[in-house]
């Protein structure tokens, strides 16, 4: 069983994505033996009204939610986010959020964002935060969106210990408290492996040593990314098969209550 906590549907404003419909993503997943994937709207990253992207995803995954697990993209500074959250959770069956503080231009420490996180936590939803969407060096001439600084994540996980966070598309965790052993932080976050090294510096191995395999989850970033680099990491990772199984699926299934 492989569960991917880092997948997307829809269009991205700055690059053509393939395999970005439910049907084509499932075909890609089949070819890679990925059983389930957490998906959110790629379009909602740049839509002003992110809820339109959530509606598109809800439509796409209808009848396929046994494999495609939808998360909502919510901008807590946009009108009606409370209504959107309720609809996404109660009508669309979205069991988590994806937050884009830099793309949507707000602070993780802002009152509105904390209110959103509290409301989602109250509903038992997971909050995932992509540290980046794409490499900043290939950005369009129209905008310059920085990565989410890991220091801001540190403050967030401390401030909201009851929330559950999945951090995606990040790197350099071992150079900050998030990836260090006995870091004094609540164990309320897990780290997706899509950009972590599994050889040479082997940050993936370091995180397993420091935090435990329970805190790492498999995720590819498809269809933005080829899924294969993440699969290769699991294959070359120097750890036991039971630990790999946790990373491959068990951790995500426990968090998602699958």
């Amino acid at each position: 069983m492989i569960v991917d906590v880092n997948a997307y549907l829809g269009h991205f404003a700055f690059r053509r994505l393939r395999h970005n419909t439910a049907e084509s993503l499932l075909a890609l997943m089949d070819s890679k033996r990925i059983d389930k994937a957490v998906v959110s709207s790629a379009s909602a990253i740049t839509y002003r009204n992110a809820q339109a992207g959530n509606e598109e995803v809800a439509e796409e995954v209808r009848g396929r939610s046994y494999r495609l697990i939808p998360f909502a993209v919510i901008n807590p500074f946009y009108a009606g986010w409370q209504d959107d959250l309720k609809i996404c959770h109660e009508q669309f069956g979205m069991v988590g959020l994806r937050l884009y503080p830099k793309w949507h231009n707000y602070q993780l420490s802002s009152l509105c964002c904390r209110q959103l996180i509290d409301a989602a936590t109250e509903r038992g939803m997971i909050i995932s935060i992509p540290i980046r969407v794409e490499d900043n060096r290939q950005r369009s001439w129209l905008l310059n969106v920085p990565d989410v600084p890991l220091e801001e994540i540190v403050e967030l996980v401390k401030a909201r210990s009851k929330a559950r966070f999945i951090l995606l598309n990040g790197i350099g965790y071992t150079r900050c408290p998030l990836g260090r052993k006995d870091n004094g932080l609540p164990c309320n976050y897990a780290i997706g492996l899509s950009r972590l090294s599994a050889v040479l510096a082997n940050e993936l191995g370091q995180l397993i040593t420091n935090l435990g395999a329970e805190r790492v989850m498999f995720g590819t970033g498809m269809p933005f990314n080829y899924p294969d680099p993440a699969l290769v990491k699991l294959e070359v990772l120097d750890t036991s098969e039971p630990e790999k199984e946790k990373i491959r699926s068990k951790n995500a299934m426990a968090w998602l209550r699958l």
Partner: protein
Amino acid sequence: MTIPRIISGPQAFQPCISRRTLLKSSAALAMGAAVLPPAHSMAVEQSVAGTSSDPIRNGKVIDCHAHLNHRSRATWEADDRKLIEAADKLRIDQLCCSILTPHRPATADGFRECNRWTADGMRRFRGRVLGYCYVNPGYGREALEEIRRCVEDRGFIGIKLYNEYTCTEPVVFPIVELAIELGVPILHHASHSHYFVEDQPRMSDAGHLAELARHYPEAMLICAHISGGGDWEWTVKAARHAPNVLLDTSGSVTDEGTVEMAVAVAGIDRVVFGCDSSMTAGVGKIRGANLSTQDKQKILGGNMVRLLGRRKS
């Protein structure tokens, strides 16, 4: 090279990926892979990388863009070993390596020292490490002498140029002419961003390399790391009409479709596999590309073998 095959089930999961997996994965997508077993129970081929005395043969996986570590780094020796261990795990047979000075522009003493260490790496990892001679073209005669020494006396396979000069500056031309004379490729650092990269004001991009290639159609120019952070779609398109510019797939970016677009635009014979230290990214994107096994073999090593076969000495 002997490649014994070991069939392993889920209980005996092998930590290393297989060449077969590397080559087959995308074809599986095209064929609708339902009949294939789970990835972690696929047959695993174990190669004995590093046992060859023949550095350039067909059928190998050659990383066209790798680096050994500068010895100002305290852990350089262990880190060099890690590179080879990573290559072992990923079934990369050979790594085309250079060592760059930590600070640039490189001095003549600086690049000569780096090349001595690269030569030492070629001895320490015989058959696994192939050397690029790194020079700063601004040193004129000294740079040319160093290239000749490295290629003719030390067996280096090519030249590595970084960002000291944009490749279209005349100071670079004698280097290109010497590369043509020796029949060796130039791996040129390159990137294209839609903003000015302040710390690399003389960065080359694929457009510069295409322009250089038009002046020197006999040159073999490798445009480094198309997945190295710049706009790879721009890079691929800029290189389209330069048949003697090859595209190196290395870099940390794993954007889906990169390799396929490079092949579609530049042609299968002009795409070469590289990692530039992003090892699983490098291997994964080739494995994931929706290309035939034959095309992947060309990218993984066939094209580089062909290129290295044009050496004149």
